[in-house]
């Protein structure tokens, strides 16, 4: 008899984890076998490596540097719309990259709003393509993430510490030394590492705003070797390089220790006595406005410029939209089929193996998996014919780490709270899963499914690798319209994509919480 009886078996979860590991390592092996040893890196490859590292460092540094004052302001000010703004900081995560880029072009591009303003003063229009454009887009995506991480750091400081600091008469500088700097020392390294790792595998941003020998990331170089030269050997070698980079960065991001905390408080309501001077009020207001404008202006630009394009959308756009819905649906189902058994197995205490498999998805790059799948599929079938399922599968694996972070804690609490009761009623296996586990996890399943659907809907990665001219998902179609300089149609299609992504997230997340008790 097992030491602790369980209401459900961990086997399915271990199986799912093995499938994920086999997919990631299998494609990696396919790539490694294909890479020609001894050929070494050419000068273009070195340039891609250099550019990848430089843009990732700049993006991470700038995002975090700007997030520190923004998070400080959000932490100590209370104003109407504060909660909404903080919630909006989560939006870029599910915002399709191509949509954001169109918005950024509308604001910061040659013919954008900023250039229009500069022209009033007789200044040259700004140039967005190249390194600074790539960094700008990365900061757009990651400044909100960094702000949320640092804000969380602020919120973890117990209210008692602020009370004590106020009682001791701490001024702004003392507050920084007593509370803010120790908190930042704990939070900032992790934030830097996470954003650095995210920017390393940047593909869609580099594809649209970079390019050329001076602004090519490794992911983009893989794509080019593959699509333009059909040089599988070089694509494979670059994939290997990319894997080493992301693997190392993911390892660092996980390792960067969360140092000592502030100890527990008694959850007294937070009240702050600092930051009452006029200067600090003005400065905080400035940072909040700046962050909000940076986040909201490109979104507003898409909404404004997309509406005229929306009326005359071509049939090709609607077909692409249908493909995107299919990909997102299939991807969401695949993600749940993998993630639910995995989360359950982790909740049963079979954690290590499975959590490692989940984290693999963070280190693996979609283009590497895509290249590997292509190499594997090529001899037996036409890879281009499989673009839809392959895209869905890769998207599902990419969403897996996030889904597990949402599902695992809830699965643990359900098994912990209802496991014994269910067993004493002889409710095991399927009845336990259907009657207890899934109903109790509905909200989390809806949330993670919403994320997966939105991420897949907006993904412009592996699909670019696999699609032939006849096939497109909506993000790819937007990219093609941009490439053909049909900006109005592109903006219309982008607005449609934005609406589809957000509704997919909203419907699934809402569906999970509909009529859900306690």
């Amino acid at each position, binding site marked *: 008899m097992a*030491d*602790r*009886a369980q209401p459900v078996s961990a086997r399915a979860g271990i199986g799912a984890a093995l499938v994920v590991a086999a997919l990631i390592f299998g494609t990696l092996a396919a790539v490694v076998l294909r890479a020609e040893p001894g050929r070494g890196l050419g000068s273009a490859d070195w340039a891609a490596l250099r550019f990848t590292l430089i843009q990732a460092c700049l993006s991470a540094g700038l995002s975090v540097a700007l997030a520190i004052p923004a998070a400080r302001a959000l932490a100590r000010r209370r104003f109407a719309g504060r909660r909404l703004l903080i919630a909006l900081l989560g939006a870029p995560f599910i915002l399709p990259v191509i949509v954001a880029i169109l918005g950024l072009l509308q604001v910061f591009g040659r013919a954008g709003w900023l250039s229009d303003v500069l022209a009033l003063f007789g200044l040259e229009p700004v140039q967005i393509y190249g390194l600074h454009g790539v960094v700008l887009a990365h900061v757009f995506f990651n400044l909100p993430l960094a702000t949320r991480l640092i804000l969380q750091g602020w919120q973890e400081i117990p209210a008692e510490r602020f009370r004590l600091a106020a009682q001791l008469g701490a001024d702004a500088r003392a507050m920084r030394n007593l509370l803010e700097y120790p908190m930042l020392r704990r939070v900032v390294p992790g934030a830097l590492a996470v954003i650095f790792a995210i920017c390393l595998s940047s593909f869609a941003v580099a594809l649209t705003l970079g390019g050329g020998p001076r602004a090519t990331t490794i992911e983009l170089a893989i794509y080019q070797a593959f699509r333009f030269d059909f040089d599988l050997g070089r694509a494979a070698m670059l994939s290997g390089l990319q894997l080493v980079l992301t693997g190392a960065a993911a390892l660092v991001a996980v390792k960067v220790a969360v140092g000592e905390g502030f100890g527990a408080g008694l959850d007294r309501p937070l009240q702050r006595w600092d930051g009452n001077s006029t200067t600090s009020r003005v400065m905080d207001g400035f940072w909040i406005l700046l962050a909000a404008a940076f986040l909201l202006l490109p979104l507003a630009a898409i909404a404004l410029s997309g509406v005229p394009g929306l009326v005359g959308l071509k049939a090709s756009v609607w077909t692409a939209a249908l493909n995107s819905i299919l990909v997102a649906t299939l991807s969401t189902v695949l993600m749940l089929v993998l993630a639910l058994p995995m989360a359950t197995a982790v909740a049963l205490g079979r954690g290590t193996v499975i959590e490692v498999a989940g984290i693999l998805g963070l280190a693996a790059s979609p283009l590497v998996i895509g290249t590997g799948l292509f190499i594997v599929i090529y001899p037996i079938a036409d890879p281009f014919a499989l673009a839809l399922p392959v895209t869905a599968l890769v998207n599902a694996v990419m969403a897996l780490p996030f889904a597990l972070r949402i599902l695992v804690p809830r699965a643990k609490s359900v098994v912990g709270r209802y496991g014994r009761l269910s067993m004493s*009623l002889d409710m*095991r296996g399927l009845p336990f899963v259907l*009657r207890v586990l899934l109903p109790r996890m509905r909200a989390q399943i809806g949330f993670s499914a919403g994320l997966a659907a939105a991420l897949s809907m907006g993904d412009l990665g592996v699909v670019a690798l696999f699609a032939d001219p006849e096939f497109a998902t909506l993000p790819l179609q937007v990219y093609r319209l941009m490439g053909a300089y049909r900006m109005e149609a592109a903006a219309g299609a982008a607005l449609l994509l934005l609406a589809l992504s957000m509704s997919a997230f909203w419907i699934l997340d809402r569906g999970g919480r509909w009529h859900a008790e306690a």
Partner: protein
Amino acid sequence: MLRLENCLIENGGFALHADLEIAPGSRIAVIGPSGAGKSTLIEALAGFRALSEGAIRWRDYDLTPIEPGKRPIAMLFQDGNLFPHLTVAQNVGLGIHPNLRLDNAQQANVQAALARVGLDGMGDRKPAALSGGQQSRVALARVLVQGRDLLLLDEPFAALGPALKAEMLDLVAELVAESGATLLMVSHDPSDARRIADQVVLVAEGEADPPMDTATLLDNPPPALKAYLG
């Protein structure tokens, strides 16, 4: 007879030994200092904790290798005895069939059990719409339809006020009297024991003693119990 034959239950650095017999139909209170292993004993009986040594037999039938849900045992825990997403009737119906496929006779059985505990007509509500006492009654209705030989209570009424707790204990006493089930209930309150238990199993210093008459034991407590009772 319920026999615990030379049982050793280990939990980390803690070990509890039990070698005792309980007659069918008894009403037993398990009392002792906190941390002495009262809940451990009940969990081992219910099958949530494996024995390191020994065996548990019910009517000469070895329960030791049997899974919790297959034992002739109904159990109520300290908390979390109901599923909040299921209706009252569904929560009771789980006691008949864990996948809730009930025929008409079984449905009627559920309604009758609800009526017996005083919850007639509340079958369609969710637990959150009931008071604490009513939630306890739902759990007892489920015990009723389970129809098991043994009923284990791990202080399920601890969160209720004194009057309500007494009411529930009286209901438990009535129900086991009607069904003839054997009752074992953990308690840290000697007045609970006096109220419904005819015998007491004292758990102290790593040992679960054979049952003794409640009044005799509580009136002349041995040193370990005396220290606890104060």
